[in-house]
């Protein structure tokens, strides 16, 4: 992106779109961090903050969609600009979904606050940290156009899945130990599932970043052969 567009207005609109996306990414990261803290610290106020942040996220999503539509209609973008805008349209969906997942986690936190705490599950914290790191890396890859970072995100998704399965078994074990754990362990299982989904969305973002930079689609490698 070294040379500037001859049309300064176009250049400005593109960089405004980029900044909005970064703002959205930052807010989604905050949501997850707040949600996990609400869970760990049993703090309903933090959970409320997640909901408030998500309303901002939703507003930003609409704004970004509008900006993309306007650019497509008025500027007839081509090549890397076109890929950037179509990528923006897609990752905004993933980011918004991540925000929704953070809200779900916050709701679970409020729910779990009603009952006494279960014993601490370390792998859940680990999974949450790993997911946040994946999200941050995929956003960094987007900002820097860094395909190596994006590829690392895609590769590390397997570790996330492994962690999730381990956690699943651990929570299953808790339920078998004592039926009174079932309700809370199920809630935690949902949180783990949300985190795992969150990781998938981060992977989607990373895949789109690779498309944006290289112009080649790395998704669904098997389906290409059918064409």
């Amino acid at each position: 992106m070294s040379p500037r567009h001859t049309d300064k207005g176009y250049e400005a609109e593109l960089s405004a779109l980029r900044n909005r996306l970064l703002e959205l990414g930052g807010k989604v990261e905050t949501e997850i961090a707040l949600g996990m803290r609400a869970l760990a610290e049993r703090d309903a106020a933090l959970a409320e903050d997640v909901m408030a942040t998500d309303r901002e996220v939703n507003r930003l999503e609409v704004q970004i969609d509008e900006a993309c539509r306007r650019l497509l209609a008025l500027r007839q973008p081509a090549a890397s600009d076109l890929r950037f805008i179509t990528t923006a349209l897609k990752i905004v969906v993933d980011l918004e979904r991540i925000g929704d997942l953070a809200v779900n986690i916050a709701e679970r936190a409020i729910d779990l606050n009603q009952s006494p705490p279960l014993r601490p599950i370390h792998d859940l914290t680990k999974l949450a940290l790993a997911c946040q790191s994946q999200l941050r890396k995929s956003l960094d890859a987007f900002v820097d156009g860094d395909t190596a970072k994006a590829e690392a995100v895609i590769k590390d998704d397997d570790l996330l899945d492994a962690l999730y399965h381990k956690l699943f078994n651990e929570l299953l074990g808790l339920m078998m130990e004592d039926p009174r754990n079932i309700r809370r362990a199920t809630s935690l299982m949902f949180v783990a599932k949300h985190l795992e989904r969150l990781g998938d969305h981060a992977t989607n973002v990373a895949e789109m970043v690779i498309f944006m930079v290289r112009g080649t689609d790395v998704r669904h490698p098997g389906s290409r052969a059918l064409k």
Partner: protein
Amino acid sequence: MISAPPPVASSGPHPAPAASDTARPKIEAIDLSAWYGTTHVLRNVSLSVPANTVLAIIGPSGCGKSTFVRCLNRMHELVPGARQSGQLRIDGEDLLSRKVDPVDLRRRVGMVFQRPNPFPTLSIFDNVIAGFKLNGIRGDHAAVVEKSLRRAALWDEVKDRLHASALSLSGGQQQRLCIARALAIEPEVLLMDEPASALDPIATAKIEELIHELKQVLTVVIVTHNMQQAARASDRTAFFYMGELIEHGDTEQIFTNPREPRTEDYVTGKFG
């Protein structure tokens, strides 16, 4: 001892086998250069165009795209001091060879220009048939006129006033008349040098639709300043810059994922 490998592409007397007929390019430029006096306007361009496709040539003013097209029907050499080197083949035959008569070549390679240029002294009918009449070719002129005007999607608009002056038509109609005039002599290749730059969007859309129809029967090379037009109307796109062919490929690839940074900058509007 190792015997010499057989030539891959034979331009010899043996006709190519039927299977490779479709693969063989209709137009092929090999190391084509062109000059106006001492100005080198086209530098070692190598490019091929498959039959029944549309090639769009894009690039900033003075990049040599018009010169390239004018080499294809040897209109380039009409300018005093103009010359060219390299090879330019149609169906494998070098059309820059001394054996090729440019007048015959131009009957095989038709051309449509930037501004509609019907003959002002002639009627619509006589404009379409001008290539026949002025070359003294006999035949069923009325049938040729109707067929050509139909192919140029102009017949219904002018069938009741074929003997009116060509200048009584609108700009877009005049341009389609010029296309009909070029089609009348049944060319194999149609060159279009910014054919819609003087037309309104509706007339432009009609010309582009026409290009889609025409590629069923001939090969089209279109020069355009309008990148959206290149994107809409062509199968393949070539980007010229400062007399060089920077990149050519499938139009979709050029506009979504060009390989060359200069192409990227041009199609995204980062020049100047």
